[in-house]
């Protein structure tokens, strides 16, 4: 029944777009409606994605965990060893160093910027107003051979090299079915600062009561990117809070021992 409703909505809307100008909020409302409804989205407490990246022939399995309280991590499995990247417990951001395989904290500025957007799970457009975000419809634009609505999403500003900067992403919603198919944002920090990144989403599939993209291709704007293929998305997974905690170093003496 839900699928019938989806079809109906998609058709009606694709006709009505010819006549009526859309507002940003209508587009967002349609997006949530077409992907399961706001209520279903609000119920999501967390998700665990099992994915694969193929980097020049090397298959890398990933697990991406995101929770409503902002906790998140990416776990990479190399040769049976788990390497955690971008682990955030709401306060501390850390990653496993590839060389030492020990946990190291992220710099404070990046951590602070994580905190500023920790409430946007599971989708930055859900409750965007409560999070202090704003949206603006910039018009229609063609991307991937497809007509889209271009929406500007302004999040809470971030701090870059000590200076507060706007944190803006551009979302391209397919005019036919109202799901975002591309996100572009300016790279704000690091040597690539000033260039634009691009993520393309596809393979929207049903997960519980909502639809989510199972394929994401990330790279620089307008250039071929790297695809993350998601095999499985588990909603509301049980994750021990300890997994997100920074493992305090207890091996100082051992290190000295090793040097001797």
């Amino acid at each position, binding site marked *: 029944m839900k*699928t*019938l409703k*989806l*079809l109906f909505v*998609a*058709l009606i809307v694709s006709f009505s777009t010819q006549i009526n100008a859309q507002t940003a909020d209508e587009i967002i409302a349609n997006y949530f409606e077409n992907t399961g409804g706001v209520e279903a989205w609000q119920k999501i407490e967390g998700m665990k994605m099992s994915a*694969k990246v*193929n980097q*020049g*022939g*090397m*298959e890398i399995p990933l697990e991406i965990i995101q929770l409503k309280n902002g906790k998140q991590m990416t776990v990479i499995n*190399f*040769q*049976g*060893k788990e390497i955690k990247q971008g682990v955030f417990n709401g306060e501390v951001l850390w990653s496993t160093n*590839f*060389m*030492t*395989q020990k946990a190291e904290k992220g710099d404070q500025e990046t951590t602070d910027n994580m905190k500023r957007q920790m409430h946007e799970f599971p989708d930055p457009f859900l409750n965007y107003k409560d999070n202090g975000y704003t949206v603006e419809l*910039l018009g229609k634009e*063609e991307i*991937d*051979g*497809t007509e889209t609505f271009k929406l*500007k999403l302004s999040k809470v500003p971030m701090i870059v090299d000590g*200076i507060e900067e*706007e944190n*803006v992403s*551009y979302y391209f919603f*397919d005019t*036919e*079915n109202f*799901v975002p*198919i591309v996100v572009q944002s*300016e790279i704000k920090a690091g*040597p690539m*600062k*000033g*260039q*634009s990144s691009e993520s*393309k*989403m*596809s*393979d*929207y*599939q*049903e997960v519980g009561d909502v*639809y989510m993209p*199972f*394929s994401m*291709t990330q790279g620089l704007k*307008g*250039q*071929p990117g*790297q*695809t*993350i*293929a998601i095999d499985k998305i588990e909603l509301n997974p049980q994750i021990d809070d300890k997994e997100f905690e920074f493992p305090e170093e207890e091996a100082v003496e051992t290190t000295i021992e*090793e040097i001797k």
Partner: protein
Amino acid sequence: MKKLFFAIVLSIGILSFNSTAQTAETIDASRLFGSLTARHIGPALMSGRINDMEVHPSNPRIIYTGTAGGGVWKSNDAGTTFNPIFDDYCQSIGAVTLDPNDPDNVIYVGTGETWPRNSVSIGDGLYKSVDGGSNWIKMGFENSERIANIIVNPSNSDEIYVAVLGALWSDSEDRGVYKTTDGGTTWEKVLYINQKTGCADMAMDPSNPNVLYASMWEFRRTAWSFESGGDFSALYKSIDAGKTWNKIHNGFPEGQLGRLAIAIAPSNPNILYTVIEAEEDLRKGLYRSDDAGENWNQLNNDFGITVRPFYFSRIVVDPKNPDVVIKAGLNGSISRDGGKTFKSLGRMHSDIHDIAFDINNSDIIYAGTDGGIYRSWNGGTTMEIVENLPLSQFYHVSVDNAEPYNVYGGLQDNGSWYGPSSSGGGIEARDWNSVGAGDGFRVLRHPKKNIIYSEMQGADNVWRYDVDNKLVKTIQPLPVKGNPKLRFNWNAPMAISTHQPDRFYMGSQFLHKSEDMGDTWTIISPDLTTNNKSKQEQESSGGLSVDNSGAENHTTIFTIAESTFDENIIWVGTDDGNVQLTTDGGQTWTNTSANIAGLPKNTWVYHIEASVHDKATAYAVFEGHTHGDMKPYAFKTSDFGKTWTNIITDDVKGFARNLQEDYVNPNLLFLGTEFGLFITLDGGNSWAKFTNNMPAVAVHHIEMHAGTNDLVMGTHGRGIIIIDDISPLREITPEVLKEKLHFFTSKPTVMKDQGGFGSNFGTETQFVGQNPSTAAQIKYLLPKRHTFGKMTFEIQDMNGKVISTLGAGKSKGINIVNWFYSIRQPKTAKGKTFSFGGFTSPRVKAGQYKAVITKGKETFEHVFEVVYDKHSGLSAEERELKFNTTMKMYDMTEELAYIVYELDAILDAVNKDNKKLISSLNSLKETLVITTGDNYVGSAEPQLREKMADLYAKIAGSYDKPTSNELGNLSIIEERFETAKKDFAKLKKKAKLDDLVLKSFDEFIKE
């Protein structure tokens, strides 16, 4: 049910698609380019012409530049590197201005460069961004052609002044100073002189926004002459925010004036500087006023101050010191005594157009030149170039047959160059080779020999460069007894022959032919131009300042095309509108231009493309911008020029300079215009702009590489841009568009064995050109973007065994998936650290493979072939040995991984009291994998896993067959492995864990 939904949506999409495709007699390519993407290879080492510099008023890290032909670039790191922010729009820039009230967000860009040399492009209006350059809106001024300044009132963002210099080659009422008081909704022209006189420079008193200065300039260019100056050039001042304007000439020279610059000292707005182009040489030069323009005193008329006013009329005053003044010029000049005396700026590329001082430290100076941006840290004494601005302005491009092929071309004021289309680690500055001096234009490689022809302006020198022996000689045709003066275009045509490799053509007003690479010349035509004497008086060109550089040479041949079918068929086009044809090797000539309906007389023949599909067919591209005619013109003849058909539609934007015919599909044509690349799939019934990583840059010349099917573009502002392998475009027909998924045919791909070393350090801030993919590329067409439902992409062998899973392309139109010929890396034993050799993915054998796309319920298959690289010279047996050895070690690596898994499981399960067994198991494990240390300098002694994986990686990664040394090493590893396996079997038996449930080998590998 869900699938039904997808099917319905999909079919609706397809139906509507088909109906549009069938009703029109065209193939609309506009949404079909998909992931066919352009790549930029630069070069950036000589960069290109800069028109304007703009600094952020409070953040010294942020700098903008408006370039002559390469758009707008922003630096976030005080000029160390720049990023383009204006790629979708006209790339010829006059002025970039930040709103001083909101400089982080509000940017204005006035298009159309304002130093109007012969080769300048055109603008198409004023643009505004309110988000720091992410998005742009057009603010009008479509016909302004060139905008010299934009000034925003520092206390009122809605009050903006725009200086329109206007059209270069025609009258225009759009010139003058415009003002808005409502943020650009409405504009009022507040200063207008006449159709010939535009606003060349403008300034606002920083302490009083009602006080404005505007320099008005009477100027005009034709293809054959330039006029600077007249009765109407003048310097004006307004003290009432533009309502009224008065000339401020007290102390100015008598007579006519030319181009004037105006600058206010920011630290003392009463101090003004102007540089004046006047009738009398003595009275030209720098003038200063200390009373806000009431009175002027001449200070200096050095060469550096008076040189080429049309090109260099810019003065910039130090923001802190009113006596420190920099004047743009051939070298740039700086005065520290209020303009009385000057010295040259430090050595950098000549032709300095604009200067910017750092807002806090006047020792830091940025200079915009004909060769990019330079930085100085010591007040202009020494200058260093910004290395990542690929703004090179090519006039022409050609390619050779090397592997990888090289790209050749000449640049505005930056000589002639060639460089590779791919190089280890990307195409770097060091990959480019200089093959000519002065301004460079056409560069051609001899078809058989390692000899390069290049030239400088007006064919003053035409070089023949023997690359192997490093021998250079000049070979330009010289007049001999009975010849009149030879007239060569600034950008003189040369051509080689596909029939006679040593043949070389040059065009003056005559067609010159040499059969011995330029040593001896024969004239094989009469004067093929109109020979209009009134267009041959270049010595008086320039107006108040004579400017006879050769740039205005006219009534010359501009393009030469010898037919690939018949060497006696030669097409010649002239800059004054003649399309001449000989079919008898030059004995008789016919001017066919009168047969072209709809083409204004004397429109410049920019390019003739002799068809490779039909002897009688040719394309001619005309452009009339030097007559003020900005329309694109391209015509096709199929009867040797007796009749011509227009192939341009309203889809094409910008005047056109070049056309490239596809070598296979005669209906596939590529058109280079002033605003980018346009492609037709239907012989010119419809055109679509190509925008995938392709800026709206002027495309001066296009070449197609016959071996790779790459489209190579010489752009005038963004260097060389290549679209790799355009062959999918050949296959798009109305029938193909009806398919649910269409695989494009593919040639066998070579698994390249060639490697090398890229540079590591010292080039961090340099531009690096992108390489083409060396992967097997599977290309297919989707009629609609895939957004809902699963779509997977597998590479399988011919028995259906999955070899690799890749991300599928989902775009509407052409999709390209890269496969690097690899099997996934082996599952490697778990140790304390990584075994880096274990990350190696081995290559498949040469042969046929299948790409299998599953989209919803449907499956689509495509068989393709990969072949070995001949360069490595291995026999079939040696390939077999290499593959089998690699896979043997791959299997050993996985077998070891399974043993370690079993061992770990037993260690976990075994009775903890059995200390002897645990100790034996641990001892064994310590010989199998590393169990201590880290992945860097704390690494432990390598064990069996490491030794096995390292040898595996060494053999798999080599181009060569395994050596006897490697095989000898392998046998030691095998022996050790056999012993380990026996030892493990014994311990396993001793553990007596018959109930222990373990994964099977297959389960373990696939998990």
